[in-house]
């Protein structure tokens, strides 16, 4: 009694949705407070038995869920209650709540099957419509299976209002329950001949979705669709049919020839831009081999490009970018419009124009296009500016700098990019500077010049985004110091006080580069001394000896500058910087005494000479690019399980595991330590030095003997076992261009492209995961497409008045019958449209049919050929 009286109170004083909305606009509580109050109210009201109160509460809840992100999954059962109300208004609220909040995992989903069935059978078409809408949104496998008969009945409804929705729902039913295809497909296909444009539009829409999922399965419907394409004057329908044919033509190229003409016809005839655009898109994406059609489409694109409407301009550019890969001439023809679009105020248009320009880039015009783009980058907003820089960077670096001939120019361009105020692509530029340094030997002198200019530019140090570029510049100046005009200035730039603005990791690179420069200077000083004394014509040729005539004073000066610059850093907090600093300072301590005592340092027995020679050897080892697949090339030794799940290992040997772990850690430590030692040792032996670290190397040798298979063949020791996986940059360069340091004053077309070290497949960015996912989606749709194919078989067979589809033999017979049928159809068509040379096409189709029947596949018909 008391409960029912509160329910009356609730009902009388319940706030409707409108009250809630009004309250919301007037509330002073703050949004979240108001919502939680309202929710409290709803929770109370929704429990009441009275359906009117309940439905109002549910309505309010679904409003809050849709617009204010309130969770309504807890009310799922109440929605089921409301939907069972006999009143239309309640039903509508209930269905709305269900479509909005139910999903596959909703447990009460099972409870609505009967209610939906009841409503599908209702005499009231609006109730039917509610149920259909619900099914089309939340239909699951079970719902689709259980309600297929009802959907089938509704497909035959005499009311267009219901029928079109029944057609719409078929898509969801097929998707969730492919067996429904057998039942409903025939009725669905019949509608392709409907004279009602609404029905036709609905059914074409469904086939468009089916064709998107699996073009092959809709191929047998080509004749019916062709008829629609030719006869219909409804733009909605035509757009969808065009979409279907775009998909079909991708699996059956011969269709293209047939549909090209009617499509061109529509393109010429219609004034509807949407249809024109769809025709263009169909032609450029799927019929790009049909010369005349493409020409017409490109002419239409041009009309779009000169329109004032930004939408048409954007779509025109869009279409151009589809056509670009196969018909670059279309883009070149419209080059002015594209370049002009770069300064459009619409970011979409600009971006599309940029993509098009990048599609045009080749080795002849890369200079011009890059210059244009750099000018635009200077004056555009930060977002687009970086988009431009990124496009240029990725286009130029594509396929190991395929389109770059003049690397001096390109390296300078990279330097220019760093000076564009909005530039934020530091990391990519950093990567390319280093990459070019390693791959292109001929570009190194220019690279060093550009790096030098970057290092001394005071503006760059303050820009956070450019720090990676400076890191690369510092590395380049150290690594390729032999091309440096003035090492002394380089060191000054590397140690300038403002480097304090850099993050420690980059600072460390700076210090290490200074170290390299120092070692280089010492070495060339000694060699110069040596050669003047011994007159031995060593192969000490390159720029260094002649250009950098180091005097004793200049060397002493250099050492002092470095020491002065680094001493304050030796107490820094960052370990990396500190370590590098200590290294350099340690080195300086070692050499300084000798340096200040003796003037004749040519004596190879002195400490300073030995140490310098040693460091020189350490630094002179050439770094080459590493293949992205290097790791994959190490074959997994037999018996080594890499994919074994070790999750239960702990359970099995819990106690024993821990000591083993700690052991192995120290072991690997030792190894990595000894590896580095060994390398040094190798250098030392090469430079006939003394005191090899015997202990470590013997340990390593032992390790290597035992685990030889895990070692990568080292470049230096045995070039034979290299297998040319990692060609040394300079070896290749020496072979091909005998005079690599020939100064090139004016970069011309005649200039030869320098050698770019390229690792075979490893350099390509590959995307196997994508391909994989494609396969997966294909698998997903497989059942549906198989169902459609078999439904088509049944359908065709139905026309032939045949039965008994089961046995394999029967199937073969059946398919041959279908061929007959197709041939007769084909002849009919041919009579209607005398187009192809009769004998040749007949012959062709025969051959095709034979192939098809041999493979026992569903036959792709030749109706149209």
């Amino acid at each position, binding site marked *: 009694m008391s409960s029912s009286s509160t329910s009356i109170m609730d009902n*009388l004083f319940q706030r409707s949705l409108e009250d809630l909305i009004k309250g919301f606009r007037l509330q002073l509580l703050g949004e979240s407070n108001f919502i939680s109050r309202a929710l409290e109210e709803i929770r109370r009201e929704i429990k009441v038995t009275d359906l*009117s109160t309940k439905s109002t509460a549910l309505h309010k809840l679904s409003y809050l869920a849709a617009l204010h992100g309130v969770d309504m999954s807890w009310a799922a059962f109440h929605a089921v209650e409301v939907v069972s109300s006999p009143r239309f208004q309640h039903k509508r609220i209930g269905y709305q709540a269900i479509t909005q909040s139910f999903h596959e995992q909703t447990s009460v989903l099972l409870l609505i099957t009967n209610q939906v069935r009841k409503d599908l059978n209702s005499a009231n078409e609006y109730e039917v419509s509610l149920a259909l809408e619900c099914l089309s949104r939340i239909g699951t496998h079970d719902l689709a299976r259980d309600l297929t008969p009802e959907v089938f009945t509704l497909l035959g409804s005499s009311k267009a209002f219901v029928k079109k929705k029944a057609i719409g729902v078929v898509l969801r039913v097929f998707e969730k329950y492919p067996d429904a295809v057998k039942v409903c497909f025939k009725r669905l296909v019949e509608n392709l001949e409907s004279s009602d444009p609404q029905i036709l539009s609905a059914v074409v829409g469904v086939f468009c979705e089916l064709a998107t999922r699996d073009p092959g399965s809709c191929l047998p419907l080509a004749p019916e669709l062709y008829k629609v394409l030719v006869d219909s004057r409804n733009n909605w329908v035509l757009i969808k049919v065009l979409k279907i044919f775009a998909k079909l033509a991708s699996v059956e190229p011969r269709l293209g020839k047939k549909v090209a003409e009617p499509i061109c016809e529509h393109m010429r005839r219609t004034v509807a831009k949407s249809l024109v655009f769809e025709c263009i898109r169909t032609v450029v994406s799927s019929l790009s081999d049909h010369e005349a059609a493409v020409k017409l489409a490109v002419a239409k694109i041009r009309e779009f490009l000169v329109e004032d409407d930004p939408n048409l301009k*954007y779509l025109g550019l869009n279409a151009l970018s589809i056509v670009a890969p196969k018909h670059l001439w279309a883009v070149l023809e419209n080059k002015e419009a594209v370049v002009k679009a770069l300064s459009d105020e619409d970011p979409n248009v600009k971006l599309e124009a940029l993509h098009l320009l990048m599609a045009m880039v080749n080795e002849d015009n890369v200079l011009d296009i890059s210059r244009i783009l750099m000018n635009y980058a200077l004056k555009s907003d930060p977002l687009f500016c970086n988009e431009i820089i990124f496009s240029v960077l990725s286009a130029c670096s594509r396929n190991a700098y395929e389109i770059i001939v003049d690397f001096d120019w390109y390296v300078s361009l990279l330097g220019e990019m760093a000076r564009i105020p909005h530039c934020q692509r530091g990391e990519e530029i950093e990567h390319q500077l280093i990459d070019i340094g390693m791959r292109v030997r001929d570009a190194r002198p220019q690279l060093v010049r550009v790096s030098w200019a970057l290092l001394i530019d005071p503006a760059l140090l303050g820009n956070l985004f450019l720090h990676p570029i400076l890191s690369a510049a510092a590395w380049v100046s150290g690594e390729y110091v032999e091309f440096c005009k003035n090492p002394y200035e380089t060191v000054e730039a590397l140690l300038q006080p403002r480097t304090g603005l850099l993050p420690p990791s980059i600072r460390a690179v700076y210090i290490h580069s200074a170290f390299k420069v120092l070692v280089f200077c010492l070495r060339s000083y000694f060699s110069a001394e040596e050669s003047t004394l011994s007159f031995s014509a060593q192969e000490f040729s390159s720029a260094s000896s002649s250009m950098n005539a180091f005097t004793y004073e200049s060397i002493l000066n250099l050492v002092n500058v470095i020491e002065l610059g680094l001493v304050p850093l030796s107490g820094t907090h960052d370990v990396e910087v500190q370590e590098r600093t200590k290294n350099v300072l340690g080195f300086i301590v070692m050499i300084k005494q000798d340096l200040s005592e003796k003037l004749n340092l040519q004596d190879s027995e002195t400490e300073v000479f030995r140490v310098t020679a040693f460091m020189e050897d350490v630094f002179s080892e050439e770094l080459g690019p590493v293949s992205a697949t290097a790791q994959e090339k190490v074959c997994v030794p037999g018996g080594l399980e890499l994919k074994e799940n070790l999750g239960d290992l702990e359970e099995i040997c819990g106690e024993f595991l821990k000591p083993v772990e700690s052991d192995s850690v120290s072991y690997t430590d030792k190894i990595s330590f000894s590896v580095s030692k060994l390398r040094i040792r190798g250098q030392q032996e090469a430079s006939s030095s003394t005191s090899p670290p015997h202990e470590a190397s013997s340990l390593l040798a032992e390790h290597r003997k035992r685990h030889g298979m895990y070692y990568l063949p080292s470049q230096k020791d045995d070039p034979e076992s290299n297998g040319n996986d990692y060609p040394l940059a300079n070896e290749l360069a020496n072979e091909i261009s005998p005079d690599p340091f020939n100064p090139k004053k004016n970069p011309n077309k005649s200039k030869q492209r320098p050698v770019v070290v390229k690792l075979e497949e490893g350099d390509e960015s590959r995307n196997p995961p994508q391909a994989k996912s494609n396969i997966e989606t294909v698998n997903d749709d497989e059942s549906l497409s198989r169902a459609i194919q078999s439904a088509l078989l049944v359908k065709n067979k139905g026309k032939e008045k045949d039965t008994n589809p089961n046995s394999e033999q029967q199937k073969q017979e059946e398919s041959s019958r279908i061929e007959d049928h197709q041939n007769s159809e084909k002849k009919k068509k041919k009579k209607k449209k005398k187009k192809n040379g009769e004998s040749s096409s007949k012959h062709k189709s025969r051959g095709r049919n034979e192939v098809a029947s041999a493979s026992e596949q569903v036959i792709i018909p030749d109706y149209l050929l």
Partner: protein
Amino acid sequence: MIKAVMMMNTQGKPRLAKFYNYMPVEKQQELIRGVFSVLCSRPENVSNFLEIDSLFGPDSRLVYKHYATLYFVLVFDGSENELAMLDLIQVPVETLDKCFSNVCELDIVFNYSKMHAVLDEIVFGGQVLETSSAEVMKAVEEISKLEAASNSISLVPKSVSGWRGR
């Protein structure tokens, strides 16, 4: 397929949001906010299309139209035509205009249920089924009538009848 229909005002308050694939409410709110943040940064008189793959996954396009204080947004995939979608926005707007004679944001705020009725006639489970606003009007009026009728039966509060029954 149409993936979502949204209406929001120029302050970013959603007025209507329909997602044709199930999505948790938090995700819905996130998408609405994401779309708004892109829309409000666009100048006037530029194209009505947006690349929106970052929000709605690959092969997603967005078309929007700006009416006085409202944005009308459609999100769809590759099986729809961009210009046709732009035309389609006109259909519900026209219909609402007929319903409320000079529709404004307040009409939309207070007629949440009717908005859905209009939209459901046009877009059915993500497919466009009706493009004539006259047809939509007819259906919406029928629905209103049905709702009114089902209410008039219950002028005697139903809970009272239920109470009497005990």
